[in-house]
């Protein structure tokens, strides 16, 4: 919404400055977005400087000038003036501007093969004098104004642009803004004078609102004005239209626009002579066609509100008029429409047809239904003043009465909500000034809501009105109390927090990637999960909710690889989606590592292998509170891992899935390792297996170490071997350390040799040779039984 202080003065007599007004508007919820000088018809013409006047390559008498117009780069303008020379300050007309002398609209054009962006002007061209010899030479005092408009407004008027929240349609008119300022004590609201017409002619056009289901129109007011002479608007009106950023068209059109911005009352003017017989406001039939004033042709769907005559649709109610009944400069007789259209139906129609207009913008937010007559009056007055003509009586068709809402207001709600005491007198004063009718009834105030405030439903809305006008600055800030009734983080959240920093401390950089992913890449990782499509994705590459964190991480890892980062560790902690219902999601921590060395240049570093990632993973799991002994590691994993170089970690108890790890399948990406921790499972496992803090027991009895080497089938995991040993005597076997794995010569091809060191120690005594021998024998027996392995001699 745009206006000027000058325009505001039509409604508000105030001594406040523009600056004070702007500050106040911000303070009462009418956010000032922009303040800039009013545009006039000559605003386009700006001060410019010729940096270099080069010879035109193809014409002796022309020059090709590099011109500084205040932008970053200079532009090229072809100029024939003899005085065009280096360093000249002059006036530049950009493409799109109209030269006052001849009404010629400038375009980017080629002059003798060279492109010219706009024109440098002579005094005659700008109607400043008759001097047409050469371009304007400005004095040096303009050297600081390059890029600024030459024709500044004398009265220094600014356009103030508000960003009006959707609940305040009343402030889409200058009157509404004035009313809010009046409520703040910023001047007096001027009354709108009653207008009397000599209604010479009779309204003789038949008008009807059809009873349709979901009929958007409930009031249709109109008047005829005959024998006008439509013309260019007078300068005061043009100025206001320009201030709105609109183009003046003709007095009739400009007046309808003016009233819309003045009173927030959209109107529409029809050429009466082009209306066939009568007007019916009805729902459209499927396939009806309307050529609208935006020069587009719309094919209507069923049940859109149209204003029609006997021939067909004249316009879309509350949205846009049609070309067929549009007014022209030679229009003699007109019909002015002032109507009420339902916000949500109007919105739906304009959305379906993708039409935006100032009228639609207002009707979908809610126009004052009681402003129908006021709008007609003001328009008729202005039209007759400027264009002459005779006004008919007003015809008002009405299918619904709009009554003022009544709210019973317990005024202490104000103090209760804002924390400071406001007395009834002040409350009533504010509300009255905003147009509410108030009546004290016992402890209540009975409030009648003005029809221009569709946003007021209940008491709390009135509280907001009061505090808004009083100013939020008046609320006393209450220092927060430093009391905690509940822990900040719950058990799960603590683990989330720890997991994030635990993985980061292993050298991984945390990333945050989209929760959505590319359909095809996601498919490689989704295993059995359901694909969750977004029906209106932002792009086809982000069309599904991710079933895994890998797709995005690998995508970005490859991008970094292309940037030259051959050694990368990335991770993300975030949601993975398992279904399309709320809550169908789990939290996964996924890390990826890649290291590509160029052989010559590795300074003793080795390429990473699966044990590097396993080390990171296991250490993080330990930091998250699991014990190494609680982890069951198996060589099974999802299909996106290398089948031979990957595994699963679950809890020995309950077999709860904690993590996957391994090399990513080489068909997806080569030489890359990764892991996934399933945080929800982990936390759940910990919650149901809470540990009791054991006190430390130290054994000072002698410990013994025994080495074993077993020949074992390749199909058997080292873990199984270790378990078989450990289970022999869990209390005395303190440590099992694999120190060699051998396959190859001297060993059958289906076997491998595993050598381990077992640490044996009793907590109660020093073991003698016989006892140690006995344990060793039991170990060998257990291993043979459980794994089929043989002790190597």
């Amino acid at each position, binding site marked *: 919404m745009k206006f000027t202080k000058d325009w505001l003065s039509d409604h508000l007599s105030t001594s406040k400055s523009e600056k004070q007004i702007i500050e106040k508007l911000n303070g009462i919820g009418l956010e000032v977005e922009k303040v800039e000088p009013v545009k006039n018809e000559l605003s386009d013409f700006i001060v410019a400087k010729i940096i270099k006047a080069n010879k035109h390559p193809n014409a002796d008498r022309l020059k090709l000038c590099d011109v500084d117009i205040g932008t970053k780069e200079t532009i090229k303008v072809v100029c024939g003036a003899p005085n065009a020379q280096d360093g000249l300050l002059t006036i530049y007309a950009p493409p799109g501007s109209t030269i006052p002398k001849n009404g010629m609209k400038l375009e980017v054009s080629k002059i003798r093969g060279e492109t010219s962006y706009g024109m440098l002007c002579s005094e005659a061209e700008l109607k400043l004098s008759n001097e047409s010899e050469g371009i304007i030479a400005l004095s040096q005092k303009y050297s600081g104004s390059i890029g600024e408009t030459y024709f500044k407004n004398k009265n220094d008027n600014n356009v103030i642009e508000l960003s009006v*929240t959707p609940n305040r349609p009343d402030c889409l008119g200058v009157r509404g803004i004035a009313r809010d300022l009046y409520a703040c004590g910023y001047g007096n609201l001027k009354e709108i004078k009653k207008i009397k017409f000599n209604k010479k002619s009779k309204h003789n056009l038949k008008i009807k609102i059809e009873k349709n289901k979901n009929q958007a129109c409930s009031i249709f007011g109109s008047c005829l004005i005959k024998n006008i002479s439509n013309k260019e608007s007078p300068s005061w009106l043009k100025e206001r239209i320009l201030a709105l950023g609109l183009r003046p068209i003709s007095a009739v059109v400009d007046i309808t626009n003016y009233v819309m911005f003045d009173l927030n009352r959209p109107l529409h003017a029809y050429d009466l002579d082009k209306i066939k017989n009568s007007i019916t406001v009805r729902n459209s039939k499927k396939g009806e066609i309307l050529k609208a004033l935006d020069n587009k042709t719309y094919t209507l769907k069923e049940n859109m509100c149209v204003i029609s005559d006997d021939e067909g649709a004249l316009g879309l109610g509350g949205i846009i008029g049609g070309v067929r009944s549009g007014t022209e400069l030679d229009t003699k007789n007109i019909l002015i429409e002032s109507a009420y259209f339902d916000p949500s139906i109007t919105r739906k129609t304009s959305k379906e047809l993708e039409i935006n207009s100032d009228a639609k913008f207002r009707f979908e937010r809610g126009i004052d239904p009681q402003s129908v007559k006021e709008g007609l009056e003001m328009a008729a007055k202005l039209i007759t003043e400027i264009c002459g003509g005779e006004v008919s009586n007003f015809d008002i068709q009405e299918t619904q009465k709009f009554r003022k809402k009544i709210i019973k207001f317990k005024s202490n709600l104000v103090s209760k909500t804002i924390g400071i005491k406001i007395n009834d007198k002040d409350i009533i004063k504010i509300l009255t000034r905003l147009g509410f009718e108030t009546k004290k009834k016992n402890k209540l105030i009975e409030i009648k809501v003005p029809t221009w405030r569709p946003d007021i439903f209940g008491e709390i809305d009135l509280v907001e009105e009061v505090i808004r006008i009083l100013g939020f*600055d008046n609320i006393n800030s209450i220092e927060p*109390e430093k009391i905690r009734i509940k822990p900040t983080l719950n058990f799960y959240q603590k683990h989330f927090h720890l997991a994030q920093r635990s993985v980061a401390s292993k050298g*991984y*950089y945390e990333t*945050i990637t989209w*929760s959505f992913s590319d359909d095809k890449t996601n498919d490689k990782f989704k295993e059995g999960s359901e694909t969750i499509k977004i029906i209106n994705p932002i792009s086809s590459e982000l069309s599904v909710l991710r079933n895994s964190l890998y797709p995005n991480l690998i995508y970005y890892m490859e991008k970094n690889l292309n940037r030259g980062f051959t050694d990368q560790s990335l991770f993300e902690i975030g*949601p993975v*989606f398992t279904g399309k219902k*709320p809550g169908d999601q789990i939290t996964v921590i996924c890390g990826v590592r890649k290291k590509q060395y160029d052989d010559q240049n590795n300074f003793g570093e080795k390429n990473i292998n699966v044990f590097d990632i396993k080390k990171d993973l296991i250490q993080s799991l330990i930091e998250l509170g699991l014990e190494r002994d609680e982890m069951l590691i198996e060589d099974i994993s999802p299909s996106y891992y290398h089948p031979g170089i990957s595994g699963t970690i679950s809890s020995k108890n309950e077999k709860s899935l904690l993590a996957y790890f391994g090399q990513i399948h080489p068909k997806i990406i080569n030489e890359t390792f990764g892991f996934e921790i399933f945080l929800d499972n982990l936390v759940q496992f910990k919650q149901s297996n809470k540990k009791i803090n054991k006190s430390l027991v130290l054994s000072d009895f002698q410990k013994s170490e025994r080495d074993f080497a077993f020949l074992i089938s390749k199909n058997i995991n080292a873990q199984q071997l270790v378990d078989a040993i450990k289970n022999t005597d869990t209390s005395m076997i303190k440590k099992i350390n694999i120190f060699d794995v051998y396959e190859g010569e001297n060993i059958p091809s289906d076997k491998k040799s595993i050598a381990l060191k077992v640490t044996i120690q009793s907590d109660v005594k020093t073991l003698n040779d016989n006892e140690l021998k006995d344990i060793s024998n039991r170990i060998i027996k257990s291993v043979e039984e459980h794994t089929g392995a043989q002790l190597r001699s």
Partner: protein
Amino acid sequence: MSEFEKKILEFKEKIKVVKNLPELNKINSEIFGKNGIINLEFKKLGSLSPDERKNFAASINSSKKELTEFFSKKSTEILDKEIIEKVNKEKIDITLPEKDFKIGKVHPVSQVIDEISCIFSEIGFSVEEGPDVENEYNNFTALNTPENHPAKDMHDTFYLDQDMKTLLRTHTSPVQVRTMLKGSPPFKIIAPGRTYRSDSDQTHTPMFHQLEGLHIDKDINMGHLKGCLNYFIKEFFEVEKIKMRFRPSHFPFTEPSAEVDIGYRIENNKIIIGEGDKWLEILGCGMVHPNVLKNCKLDPNKFQGFAFGIGIDRLAMLKYGINDLRSFFECDYRWLNHYGFDPLDVPTNYRGLSR
């Protein structure tokens, strides 16, 4: 002087001139070995009378002790000499590069979430969460959003079904609804999380982060709201004073509603928060609308309170001088390295939020 004593003196002289450990060890066994002079001398004990025995043994022992000390002194001398010789030969170019120490980084958004949680923890807020996929009711209807509100458009919200019943939450406010529906007042929570809107340009990304705040009790009013936000902003930007203004605004789920601006100025191309005469909008807030309370099964005559919503990414940008929102999600290694935080930098109340 006995034979034994003579030998002792001889050995002493021998030890004095020994040059290396093997020689020393040889002498060692000659003295202390099985057939060394000490042992041989002890063997004589058997032929002596008990009276003589005592004195004789004492004298051997004292000689043994003397020799042992003499011996270990020499041994240390030789060892030290050898080490010094060896060390003098060893020389490494220590200006060669050290091995990389791999410490990772925590994303600035995560760091800022921890900072925020730390600040609100101090004044008694706890952290709540909600799902990224929401139903239309929790995201819009329960929050008093009118049926035809533009935010519900396909242009603005990502939907998972044609009926527009399931969607990606457009704000963290549905966590308010979930929290109130599952518990009983008082409620004092913050809810950070991912939010989604169908928007992608210079300053918008289809996914971003928001922080929701909610405090409901019997008498929580706008003064508390002001105090709470004032405290938060001051703590977050780690400044003594903060310039703040509340501007009335409009949100369906709060009434009265306000937007909060903070004062700033630009100095040497850097933004200074808390002073200056420019204003920067940083959050939206208000008193929870009675309709929202009703939808959450609370009686608005008995309970009231405030809610606020803050863009986390934007806070991170302001505090840490990050210019481009889109860069948060582009995972550029250089960016992560530059703007990421050391995992040991855990924001705490007692040590402070940032280094």
